């Protein structure tokens, strides 16, 4: 490790000050606020608050609705993470093997990433529109009467498809650059040592991609848990009540629609703990198996 000498011992702190300020204002301060308000029952009209201890937590965790949303969130996160990682990897491996017109192919795949989540949600809505949606027409062709926004399962499927579709390009870029970081001579040596391309992928390509894949695993889980908010919002807003939502959307609904700031804060704190535990788990148990060059 290279040690850099600064003329003043305070100078390095000055350099990281802007970053720390942002983290403080947008992360630590709201976190502390959330933890604090999760112990109170806030008056919806702002006329003071009452200390209620852990009852916001017990209310949330004890609610059947909350539990079912948590189950859906788990399913949603697992499916979105693995589908977007898997499809992104498949496309990247194929794109890496393309010799002619590869840049056009890659650009077309990456494009989608430039779309903002609400716009993606809107486009997804159009894909699944009752009257003009091509995917609904495709489903109808197979005799499936899709009712996105009305039928719980249909909405869930549409939500997952749009979320995966939105995330594939991101995974694609990272995996492709990861693939291109594998030395050509190692691939060639493997080609001489192993005939089956499939086997080569599992024994050579994937282990060498592990650092990239591990990073993407974390990013994708965070994406599925939090960043899909925009997509979900566009898809279920102003719709009949029985629609699938994730825990993050529930936080928003309870806090800003239901004006239950205390309960909403308690839910955020629960989410924070879940993410904290997940991250620790990933670094302790998965990263250990990742080979960094």
């Amino acid at each position, binding site marked *: 490790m290279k040690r850099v000498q600064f003329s003043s011992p305070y100078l390095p702190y000055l350099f990281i000050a802007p970053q720390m300020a942002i983290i403080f204002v947008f992360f630590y301060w709201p976190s502390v606020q959330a933890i604090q308000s999760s112990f109170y029952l806030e008056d919806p009209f702002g006329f003071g608050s009452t200390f209620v201890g852990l009852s916001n937590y017990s209310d949330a965790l004890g609610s059947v609705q909350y539990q079912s949303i948590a189950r859906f969130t788990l399913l949603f996160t697992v499916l979105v993470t693995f589908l977007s990682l898997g499809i992104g990897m498949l496309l990247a491996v194929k794109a890496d093997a393309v010799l002619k017109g590869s840049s056009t192919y890659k650009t077309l795949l990456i494009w989608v990433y430039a779309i903002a989540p609400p716009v993606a949600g809107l486009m997804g809505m159009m894909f699944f529109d009752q009257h003009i949606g091509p995917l609904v027409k495709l489903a109808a062709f197979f005799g499936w009467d899709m009712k996105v926004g009305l039928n719980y399962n249909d909405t869930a499927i549409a939500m997952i498809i749009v979320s995966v579709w939105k995330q594939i390009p991101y995974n694609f870029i990272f995996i492709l650059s990861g693939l291109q970081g594998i030395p050509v*001579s190692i691939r*060639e*040596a*493997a080609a*001489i*040592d192993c*005939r089956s391309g499939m086997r080569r992928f599992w024994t*050579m390509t994937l282990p*060498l991609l592990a650092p990239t894949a591990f990073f993407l695993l974390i990013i994708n889980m965070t994406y599925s848990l939090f960043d899909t908010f925009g997509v979900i919002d566009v898809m279920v807003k102003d719709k009949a009540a029985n629609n699938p939502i994730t825990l993050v959307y529930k936080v928003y609904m309870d806090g800003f629609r239901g004006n239950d700031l205390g309960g909403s804060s308690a839910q955020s704190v629960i989410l924070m703990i879940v993410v904290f535990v997940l991250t620790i788990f990933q670094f302790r148990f998965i990263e250990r198996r990742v080979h960094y060059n």
Partner: protein
Amino acid sequence: MASIGIKDVSKIYNGGVTAVSSVSIDIADGEFIVLVGPSGCGKSTLLRMVAGLEAISEGSVTIGDRVVNEVDPADRDIAMVFQNYALYPHMSVYENLAYGLKNRRTPKAEIDARVAEAARMLELQPYLERKPRALSGGQRQRVAMGRAIVRKPSAFLFDEPLSNLDAKLRVSMRGEIKRLQRRVGTTSIYVTHDQLEAMTLADRLVVLSGGKIEQIGRPLDVYHRPATTFVASFIGSPAMNLVTGELHGSKLALGPALIDLGATVPTQGAVTVGLRAEDLHIHDGTKGDLPFRIDYVEELGSQRLVHGVVGDQPLVAAIPSEIPLPETASLSIATAKLHFFDSKSGQRIDWVGEGAIAASIPAMEVAAS
């Protein structure tokens, strides 16, 4: 073990660039062939075509009695050693050695035996559990060699395997490769740009330039009878001096000197004359035959390289370092050690006087200058 036939093989890239043009080499079973040439001469491309890593545009490659043009690299029964070792970074040394065997469904006991044998031959036993990044350059190179040996293939292909090592290690690894190849007796093709490596390793040398074969032959034959001026200047260190002279009957005019060859060369007029630096002798004053103006001297310890000019043409002479350097010098050479090349095509011109090494330096006339 198998012979390898390379027949009229060409590599033409999409843009129409010809990297290798119509190369034919017959390699006997167990032979050590070295492809040598400057960078860009097509030697690596040729090797990669034999390995199957590069498609063959024209011609055919035969390994054993099987044409392998369309055969997958893994099925060609070859093993390759790469310049940067290409070890699998996530596998231990043992796994690196065993990988190729495992994929060929070799029984576990046999894999263990072969890896143990290779590890013993290459003195890798203490490192079998280590990852490649925990090894030194020389050890990595030995693992790369081991990966080839355990497979017991028909042929070894070496793509400049020593160029990433430091000079001292290179010399010892060179010896090790030669010994190993002798011991296992596997047909080998070795690519290098280092003429010394080529000379010391090869049973036969293939000198390539611009995608074409300049000469195929045993190292000493190539050294003593280079087929072209390119080979003459590429093989041997220091490079052979190539100067222009003029032939008149049995006499050669070289700068200010006129040398009696004692026989006629089957060409007349302008000719390229090749003189090996180590065949030149230096004399005090004008006792020698070619007046030589010394420019500068490179001391190599065992010998010194004297750079200078004869007439207006630069020349290098390698002389023992114990001989004192004269103020005014002249050079002499045995006529039998003169090489003649066509001044236009650069092709060697054979003549009756060559090779008849004279015991003493014959008298040469010194032309008045």
